[in-house]
């Protein structure tokens, strides 16, 4: 019996170890390759460490498609940051109202509209959104990109799920004390909601950082492209620059990876919250 438990344990660790290796190896290969010249990568692709630790590649990808790299990086930060703040504030207020007045016909209609929106194949929603942006004169503008990225399903479900758990008695007590709805929101509900708002913000940031198609479609020139769109362009270029592609991938991956490792519990429980219980 004890013997059996031992080989079972070894087997379990081996399987989990192998799966983890497959999950993590691409990061390792990406990182090592970003330090190696394209020629060296082609000559010995599996070399476990780079020949030199030079950062020369940064000079090579200082310009992508005629636009400086710092511009893409700045766009990524601004667009992701703005769409996260806007998205979380707007979604939190909206979800709160929908939870507090769930039977009001207009709110039910709105929730249904939102559900249909997130069921619509996202990549194909981008096609008519292009037409909408054209009609509103938002094509090529930062505001167009930020507004579109602000809406997302996970932050909505996460916040809605949380607001539903607030006991009615808490709000009723505040009403009896003579608080207005605005006061209740800011001095009763929001302090309670802060941890969830933080989680929703981190998740929204991670997801919006990765977005590329809406950015590409709403943009009119590389001036509003983000890092993933620059990577997409570099990946599509002829005469493949391995090292540049890998270096750019590392630049895109590092910030979100650090962000995730710091807040891993929040991110994992937040992204799956409401899914099972709701």
């Amino acid at each position, binding site marked *: 019996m004890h013997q059996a438990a031992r080989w079972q344990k070894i087997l379990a660790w081996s399987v989990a170890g192998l799966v983890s290796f497959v999950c993590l190896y691409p990061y390792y*290969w990406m990182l090592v390759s970003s330090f190696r010249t394209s020629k060296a990568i082609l000559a010995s692709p599996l070399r476990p460490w780079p020949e030199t630790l030079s950062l020369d590649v940064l000079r090579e990808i200082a310009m992508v498609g005629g636009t400086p790299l710092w511009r893409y990086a700045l766009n990524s930060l601004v667009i992701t940051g703005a769409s996260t703040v806007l998205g979380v504030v707007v979604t939190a207020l*909206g979800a709160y109202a929908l939870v507090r007045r769930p039977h009001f016909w207009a709110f039910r209609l709105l929730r249904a*509209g939102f559900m249909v929106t997130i069921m619509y194949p996202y990549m194909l*929603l981008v096609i008519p959104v292009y037409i909408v942006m054209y009609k509103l004169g938002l094509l090529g503008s930062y505001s167009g990109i930020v*507004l579109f990225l602000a809406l997302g399903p996970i932050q909505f479900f996460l916040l809605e799920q949380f607001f539903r758990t607030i006991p009615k008695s808490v709000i009723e007590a505040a009403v009896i004390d003579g608080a207005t709805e605005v006061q209740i929101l800011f001095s009763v509900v929001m302090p309670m909601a802060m941890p969830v708002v933080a989680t929703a913000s981190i998740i929204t940031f991670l997801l919006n950082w990765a977005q590329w198609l809406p950015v590409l479609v709403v943009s009119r020139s590389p001036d509003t492209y983000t890092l993933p769109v620059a990577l997409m362009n570099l990946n599509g270029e002829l005469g493949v620059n391995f090292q540049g592609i890998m270096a750019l991938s590392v630049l895109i991956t590092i910030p979100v990876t650090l962000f995730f490792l710091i807040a891993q519990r929040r991110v994992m429980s937040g*992204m799956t919250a409401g899914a099972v219980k709701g």
Partner: protein
Amino acid sequence: MAAAALQPARAPAVGVFWLFVLPFAALTAVFGVWPIVLSIQTSFTASASALKPSPTWVGFANYLAIFADPVFVASLWRTLLYTLLAVTSTIVLALLYALLLNSALVGRGRTFFKLAVFLPVVTPDIAGYVVWRWLFDQSFGALNIALAALHLPTFGGLASTSTVLQAVLVAELWHHLGFYVVIFLANLALCDKGQTEAADIDGATALQKFWHVVLPQLRPALLVNSVYALIQYLKTFTVVAVMTKGGPNDATNFLSYYAYQLFDQGRYGEATAMASVLFAIVIVLAVGLMRVQARGTGS
């Protein structure tokens, strides 16, 4: 009586909630409902006039045109087949891996294994797929070099029509699996341990325990995961845009990608007709799945 007394107090409060909901409603209307309505409307107009204020109505001509297009019909079947394959493997693998991580066997390793499988979920998909593209490369890819070193037959990867779907699926599983594993784990944590212990006392085998005790309790996660996976794989796009461009020989030309290509060529009418078809499939399958599941639980 008490409820009636509350009514008048509630009625004026809706006004404030209107204010709270307004920005969210505006975004949903302008970037959700309006584009969808516009898309359906555009699918009934001629492409050349789609962006004009008074488009030319052509009835079902775009729908007839796409169903007469062999590339579209092939793409539709390919998308459905791939979705079936991908959803099944995602659910089965995620469930097995969650059971493994949930067992006492991995013990303290659980935190690390969970992190490793979830990290790709938050990694920007493009960055992951460009790496996989080169790992699969016929001559320089790590995968084939490793296979050759082990004296195993090489893998055709993205270059061969017979292996490209598997290669794309592997890259997508890498990116998505962790999400489904963590949902199963959350559900497993809620499972009633007493029931498993009772089955132990009754002398049930591991398989019997899984089938009769654990699996029924995993219904919520199974439903959520199936619906999520279905919606997600039906719209497979980025992996194709990065790794294969729909090739080789249209072998990965899925619906989303084909529709997007037509949109890029300005064929708005046909592109939006394809979007409507895909949307209808998503709605029918997702709602159907929820119905089946609801009937199963007997609620």
